[in-house]
């Protein structure tokens, strides 16, 4: 348990002390959200309608943009290899690093979303479901991002490749995430969508570590 805690604590400390951590993701999230009304126009009714979707897209891009910090630096300076020699299996290391990424990206952004939602005239009634859906959905996003980061860790300029591989897998999260956090559809689909989001997050939690660990091993040997 102390090993797991140490792994998470190390990543959290790095993220908080280096400028490239949670602050950058939050700044990027804010930038995207500011650009949307500038690009679409300040029509309040239109903004209110697209606010949940726009917040989700901004979240997704922020998670994707910060995905390279999950493994890249540790892979390059050799500390990842050192971690694999420790008591924890590679799969555990991957899970903990994914968790640390969620704690420094998905969770803060989900909490900040309603605040920044005011920029988009977000309907106040949607704040609760939105935070819940984003908090849950970003678990899946962070885990899938760690898979993409693992698959491209040894590739120079792997950033574009990450988006090509991972964006298709983000599609269900976005669809059910938006369904859970916006009033679209007429009938009440928020509950079932939230459950599907939870299911996706759980499936990612049990499958992604194995796939990502296999990819990291392929790069280390």
């Amino acid at each position, binding site marked *: 348990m102390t090993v797991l805690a140490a792994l998470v604590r190390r990543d959290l400390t790095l993220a908080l002390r280096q400028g490239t951590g949670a602050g950058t993701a939050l700044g990027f999230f804010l930038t995207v959200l500011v650009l949307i009304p500038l690009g679409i126009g300040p029509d309040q009714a239109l903004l209110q309608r697209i606010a949940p979707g726009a917040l989700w897209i901004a979240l997704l891009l922020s998670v994707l943009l910060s995905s390279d910090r999950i493994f890249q630096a540790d892979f390059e300076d050799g500390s990842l290899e050192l971690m694999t020699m420790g008591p924890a299996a590679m799969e555990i290391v991957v899970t903990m690093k994914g968790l640390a990424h969620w704690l420094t990206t998905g969770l803060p952004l989900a909490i900040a979303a309603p605040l920044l939602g005011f920029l988009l005239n977000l309907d106040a009634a949607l704040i609760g479901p939105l935070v819940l859906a984003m908090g849950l959905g970003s678990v899946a996003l962070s885990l899938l991002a760690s898979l993409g980061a693992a698959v491209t860790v040894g590739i120079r300029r792997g950033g574009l490749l990450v988006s*090509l591989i991972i964006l298709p*897998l983000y599609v269900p999260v976005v669809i059910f995430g938006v369904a859970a956090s916006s009033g679209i559809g007429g009938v009440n689909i928020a509950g079932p969508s939230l459950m599907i989001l939870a299911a996706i997050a759980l499936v990612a939690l049990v499958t992604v570590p194995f796939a990502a660990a296999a990819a990291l091993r392929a790069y280390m040997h």
Partner: protein
Amino acid sequence: MKIEKYANPTRFLALQEKMQPWLTGSAAFIIAIGLYLGLVVAPPDYQQGETVRIMFIHVPSAWNAMMVYTLMAVSSIIAIVFRHPLADMAAKAAAPFGAVFAFLALATGSLWGKPMWGTWWVWDARLTSTFVLFLLYLGYIAVWQAIEEPRRAAAIARIVAIVGFINVPIIKFSVDWWNSLHQGESIFRAGGPSIYPTILWPLLVMGLGYTLMFFALEFSALRSEVLARRIRQMEIAEAQGS
């Protein structure tokens, strides 16, 4: 005779040489019959008119796009479990054809959608999931392009192929799970096909023809892949020797 025997590249090359003319010939012959049945014999649909004939390209392409990805995922699993040298190459060789099939399904569907649904494209479940399949093919191909060392590229590509396979059942059942503008399953369903025999037969013949065409292309691409790898090994050996 056992099928595992042909996992050996040399034996595969010998088999491929014998089978290639038959595969290519039968694919061309069956597609010719299918086109004749579809374009000449089959009557126009009473509602859709002549546009119904787009189906004879559209549906076989979509079937093959899903089948090819399934084969790639199965090959990748075989490569992980049995370490057959040919399995990775088979998956790598299949990917561009799968991407073309997915693209054809999307393009012909779009051409068919305009007169029938009144729109080139809608973001509904089956269209979206097929588009995602196309992107997965591109991602898989990009992995092989981006990683220079073949063994490492193979190891990464396997993971990408297997993870992406989750999309195939989603495409297959998308029309049952969601209310889609795309029509529901009308061939492989309980109670038999719901489309009329005069257009069902050309469709099945074209489906068989497309599948044979894929295997003809796949065999010849796999031959190139085996030979390319041998050339690479010879070049390495030569560079080390000098």
